[in-house]
């Protein structure tokens, strides 16, 4: 068993923020495709709502057009900012795709930040269809468009609630020889994930250790899970 690679993986989208409490929290930044989809969805919602509003206000004649232009102005510039500040950092489109906006130091986005990133949309949109914005996103390890750079914000994945996997039940058995921490972790991870794998794949993975355990197939899987239970602290 080899320890996990300790060299940094540059393609990874995992980012770490250090808090004043001296720990690091990790989060995943969102790339252009998810953001384009979120933007498209928001556009549909926005223009759909404006279209309905237009139908209603058209009945009010010329004055209604004035009101509609004000609504157009407000949604054009403030729709995303409003949601980002008051709805947990996400417009409806971002929410649907599991994205949210936060400051690069990990704190929730506030009014100045949300306004900067959304007013500067006007230049991200240049020369056409978010050309500058996309170029900035692709040149930047946090996938920040120009508005994000100025506001000090980034778009991250709002992780789904982490499940609490249970080790498969059974007896606990000490490993036949001492394991280092990376190896222990690997065994526990295997046991936790084994419930989500089909039996063939479980056996295939467990067979990699057949030389150490002397067991193949289901028996090997069961033996590794027993070691994992012992390592996790279950009574023997």
């Amino acid at each position, binding site marked *: 068993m080899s320890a996990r690679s300790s060299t940094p993986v540059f393609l990874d989208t995992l980012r770490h923020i250090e*808090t004043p*409490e*001296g*720990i690091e*929290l*990790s989060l995943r930044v969102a790339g252009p495709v998810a953001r384009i989809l979120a933007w498209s969805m928001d556009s549909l919602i926005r223009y759909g709502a404006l279209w309905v509003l237009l139908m209603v206000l058209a009945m*009010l*004649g*010329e*004055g*209604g*057009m*004035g*009101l*509609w*232009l*004000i609504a*157009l*102005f407000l949604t*054009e*510039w403030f729709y995303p900012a409003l949601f980002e*500040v*008051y*709805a*947990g950092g996400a417009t409806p489109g971002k929410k649907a795709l599991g994205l949210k906006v936060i400051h690069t130091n*990990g*704190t*929730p986005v*506030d009014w*100045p930040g949300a*306004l*900067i990133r959304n*007013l*500067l*949309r*006007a*230049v991200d949109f*240049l020369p056409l269809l978010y050309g500058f914005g996309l170029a900035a996103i692709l040149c930047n390890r946090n996938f920040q468009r*120009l508005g994000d*750079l*100025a*506001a*000090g914000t980034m778009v991250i994945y709002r*992780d789904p*609630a*982490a*499940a*609490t*996997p249970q080790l498969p039940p059974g007896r606990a058995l000490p490993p036949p020889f001492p394991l280092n*921490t*990376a190896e*222990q*972790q690997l065994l*526990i*991870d295997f046991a*936790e994930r084994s419930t989500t794998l089909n039996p063939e794949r479980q056996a295939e993975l467990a067979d990699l250790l057949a030389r150490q355990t002397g067991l193949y197939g289901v028996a090997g899987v069961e033996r590794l899970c027993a070691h994992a239970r012992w*390592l*996790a*602290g*279950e009574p023997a």
Partner: protein
Amino acid sequence: MKQRPFEDRYTAGWQAFAAQLDHLERQHPPKNALRVTPLPVVELPAAYRQLCQQLAIARNRRYSGSLVARLNQLGLRAHQQIYRAPQRRWQVVLDFLTTGFPQRVRADARLFWLCAALFYLPLFGMGWAVYQAPELIYSLLSPESVADLEAMYAPGKMAGDRDASTDLAMFGYYIHNNIGLGFRTFAGGMLLGAGSAFMLLLNGVFIGAVSGYLTARGFIETFYTFIAGHGAFELTGIVLAGVAGLKMGWAIVAPGRLRRAESLRQAATGGIQLILGVAAFLVLAAFIEAFWSSNQAIPADIKYTVGASGWLLVILYLTRAGRRAS
């Protein structure tokens, strides 16, 4: 301690903490975490610090990835609740309008004069040129636009009151168009300031050309009574939008002792304050333009007096307001 006893000991605490966070995240609008929490004020940060410690231990002892992920997520959620900027909205808005904004403008006085030059020099230059040679207007506007312009300001044409719904329609149009233009001028600052400068020049040239042309045609009373009321607020708003944009542009070009990214972030924070003030100026201008300037029943003398008072007010506001507070 191995992972299982560690989990057994703290799981109840984590669940309670998660429930607490659920409660806080449901607050709409989000309030200051310390004020709405059912736990006493000191306990949320204490619980958070404890969680941080447990996360550090879990990582250090190489507990399983799923446990670390769970604790990391709890930590992230709590961090979002605790490090939330306090929000005192109306006081902030009031303080900003009475002191913060004029102070901010004075802090960027040199940029203000630069932007004023970028806007007023082409305005008066083009105005004078078109006044001398009215046909120059056709280098900027199509013959149809010029005809529209003449129809709008020809003496007699504007007689009589527009009805209220037309005023409202025009108000919406000015809001959408003028403030949008102000925001674009600001955003143009990200292109090393060039976008903002271009917008200032463009606006100066067009406004100058139109004024020069209408003056040369002798539509003096109809045109100047119309623009007198809102001119001070609108023209100053345009210049200030340029200041907000160039501030960002300059921060990228010459970041001084800061890193470029940090310099830009600081300038953008100042710039957004400026642009919010600009929005206030332009809303006021749009309101006056739609409901006052268009009213033909008001005598010209009163309109000129109100227009001059507007300029006086703007100058006093930008030079005097908020001096004592600083």
